[in-house]
């Protein structure tokens, strides 16, 4: 067979070659190829928007590549949908688990392939196969009868993996599997990966966390802007080299930092507690300052910003924003000169079925016409200015948000804070899921805002920024505090911390203050 070109490379179980995919004008994948041998783990790393997810969607048959070929064990493989991919032995474990929370573990594992005669399920057989699948996980929480919705996230993930194994998958793709796991669950998962390797599975491991990659993978392939920019045995490459490949530029260029001048304290909170999280948070934010909040997902950072902004209740503690004290509703917060950029762009941050102008001006529909009327032409004029300044790629202010890319959507969300001209910016994961160009723009913008400009009579603003990406915090902020299990630690000057120290504090391993 002419297409079996890889028979000269024994052991290569999965190969993708020359994969290209474009969405409209954007090239998502450009001539990308990967190889995974049986019993090996390939780490796929890259920034958000580098093309990892798109590549994996091609692999799983969720989307079709414009060009390129794939082989499974040397046999051409062209899935037209995820079900076909599963049948061919390729299983994806996504960040968002696709389990039925109301069903039991065994029902979930065998979902869609229950052994049955005339529609009557053979429950004994279901149980036998489910037990077989979960036995190797060695996790006491996993019993065939347990309701999946009551399991911890780590255990749920195992159920998903068990499902993949039960149908005999040989290729497992783990997409950011550790992002919502506890340290203990992460260790368990890595053990499991080791066992799966020894069973001869080919594993693709996608992650942002380079340390994890170094720990679990055999080889690493780095993607940037839809291209493979490097690949190596994990043992032969350093963390810094991987990061340099991912970012593709020197760190200093990405994070501009002007001489900033700290002013008066504009936001002060003391021992703030929400319903569950945060448990206790105190901080002071000055004009002309960028204060970063680091921490793991689920530590309560988002809840802190939300309770500050009146989107979640405040149980106790003091808040002072400018001259205003106490908790307040979002309506008041906007009036008091604060604005929140939501971490959840799609579900909270933006109204995707509305146009750019409406999204930008929604928080303050005043001054767009006489008698309190909102004249669309004036909305458009105000919006056009931000489209130009932030470089939002669109055909005009009346474009629907749903037609924009993630980076451009985020620019629109930021434009709302700028249009409202808030003094205190609460930014929750401002660069999540956007391309490098948009990130660079946002870093530059944050710097400009915090610096202000005397010539243009723009006073410096205060920025409170939550991020899970430590290099970004270190690059942008003047100060940083770490949140761990609902408790916000002390504020550090940025030159007194490094990634390692922040990570220790975030994982609660550094108890001393």
């Amino acid at each position, binding site marked *: 067979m002419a297409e079996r070109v890889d028979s000269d490379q024994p052991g290569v179980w999965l190969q993708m070659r020359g994969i290209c995919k474009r969405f409209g004008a954007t090239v998502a994948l450009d001539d990308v190829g990967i190889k995974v041998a049986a019993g090996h783990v390939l780490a796929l790393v890259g920034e958000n928007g580098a093309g990892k997810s798109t590549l994996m969607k091609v692999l799983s048959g969720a989307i079709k590549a414009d060009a390129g070929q794939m082989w499974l064990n040397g046999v051409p493989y062209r899935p037209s949908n995820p079900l076909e991919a599963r049948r061919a032995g390729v299983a994806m474990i996504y960040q968002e688990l696709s389990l039925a929370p109301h069903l039991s573990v065994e029902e979930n594992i065998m979902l869609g392939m229950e052994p049955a005669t005339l529609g009557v399920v053979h429950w004994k057989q279901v149980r036998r196969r489910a037990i077989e699948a979960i036995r190797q996980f060695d996790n006491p929480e996993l019993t065939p009868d347990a309701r999946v919705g009551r399991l911890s996230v780590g255990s749920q993930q195992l159920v998903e993996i068990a499902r993949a194994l039960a149908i005999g998958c040989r290729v497992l793709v783990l997409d950011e599997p550790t992002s919502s796991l506890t340290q203990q669950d992460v260790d368990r998962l890595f053990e499991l990966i080791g066992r799966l390797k020894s069973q001869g599975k080919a594993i693709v491991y996608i992650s942002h966390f380079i340390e994890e990659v170094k720990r679990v993978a055999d080889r690493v392939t780095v993607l940037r802007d839809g291209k493979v920019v490097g690949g190596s045995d994990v043992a032969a490459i350093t963390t810094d080299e991987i990061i340099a490949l991912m970012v593709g530029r020197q760190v200093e260029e990405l994070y501009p930092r002007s001489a900033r001048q700290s002013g008066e304290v504009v936001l002060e909170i003391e021992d703030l507690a929400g319903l569950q999280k945060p448990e206790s948070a105190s901080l002071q934010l000055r004009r002309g300052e960028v204060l970063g909040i680091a921490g793991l997902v689920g530590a309560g950072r988002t809840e802190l910003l939300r309770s500050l*902004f009146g989107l979640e209740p405040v149980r106790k503690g003091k808040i002072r924003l400018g001259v205003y004290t106490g908790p307040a509703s979002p309506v008041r917060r906007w009036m008091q000169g604060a604005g929140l950029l939501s971490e959840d762009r799609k579900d909270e941050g933006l109204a995707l079925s509305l146009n750019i102008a409406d999204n930008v001006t929604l928080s303050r529909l005043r001054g767009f016409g006489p008698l309190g009327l909102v004249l669309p032409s004036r909305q458009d004029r105000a919006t056009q200015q931000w489209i130009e300044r932030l470089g939002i790629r669109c055909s005009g202010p009346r474009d629907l948000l749903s037609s924009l890319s993630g980076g451009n959507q985020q620019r629109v969300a930021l434009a709302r804070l700028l249009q409202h001209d808030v003094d205190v910016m609460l930014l929750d994961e401002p660069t999540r899921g956007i391309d490098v160009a948009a990130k660079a723009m946002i870093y530059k913008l944050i710097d400009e805002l915090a610096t202000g400009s005397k010539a243009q009579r723009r006073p410096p603003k205060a920025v409170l920024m939550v991020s899970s990406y430590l290099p970004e915090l270190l690059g942008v902020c003047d100060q940083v505090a770490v949140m761990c299990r609902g408790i916000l630690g002390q504020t550090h000057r940025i030159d007194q911390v490094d990634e390692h120290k922040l990570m220790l504090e975030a994982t609660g391993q550094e108890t001393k203050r």
Partner: protein
Amino acid sequence: MQGPWNVLRGVLQLASLKLALALIGIFLFFVVAIGVQEAFKVHASNESVLAELEKAGVPEADRMRDPRLASPLRRGLEASRRFLGRRNLETIARQTTLVGVPALGMTLVIISGGIDLSVGSVVALGTVVIAWLLKHGGMGPVSAALSGVTAGALVGLVSGLLITSLRVVPFIVTLGMMLIVRGVAKGIARQQTITVDPQGLDWLLASVPPKQGWMLLPLGVWAWLILAVATAALLRYTRLGRHTFAIGSNEQTARLCGVPVERVKVLVFMLGGAFAGLGGLMQFSRLTIGDPTVAAGRELEVIAAVVIGGGSLAGGEGSILGTMVGALIMGVIASGCNQMGLPNWVQEIITGAIIVAAVAIDRLRHRRAA
């Protein structure tokens, strides 16, 4: 550039031009169909007349002079022209107003992401309140009419407050209100229709007398058109309107941006109720009785008008012009089927098919755009 041209362009942008074309298409279809049907009818009757005459032994030359014979072509054209004529257009407009007025409010409610199932009951309540006040309350026609509208607004206010304070979805709350309001209407009317002298309120939707031909359309229809323009402007040029869209598109975003979500929702339901109450006034004008059982299921026709007009039940989408065209499409179908002598069930099947088709086409368009 500000100016009337911009306003007009704005209104047109919102509406689906294709929908208007569909309306014209459906209308022309009926014009032709009615003419053809009439022609065939006349032809058939001619045949049978001729056959009869032949049987009776009338000589062939005399047969053609029989007064019962008519030209199929001429009679067909006449029938077509009747459907196109002012009298019929006016009837369609009057009939459509009954659905069209509550549909204005429903458009607001649906754009905000809600739904109001109590519209039919509110229309009935409106007729009952007006009739009762005219008969027993000693009110003049104007204050009785306003009371009917107010009653509707109050129902909307209660729905809105229940939805926002109990955090129960609009579907359930207004389903409950549908029964409650229907019950209240029946209670006020003591389970009977209230017959009363309309004191001029019937004039609202009566056909235009020849002397006042300059009015072109009955006052009620004009009221509908003017209110439609006002509502469209409200949606497009006011904060309330933009907030309504924002809430329907993404309630969380609206809340994040400091939109007073609860207040806007209550207002929207109140407006919806007021328009339904006004629908009750129109209904009363048409029938001149207070009837607590009238307009059962009207809410579904109203929702259908909004949905045909491009409104999305998920919220955030919809337009007044679309809704009006949607209501007109249903009005034209009803009138056309009526005049073709098609039974009611055929009309229902056609309307149902149009609803599904309109929405399916709309989704298809959306998917292509996305």
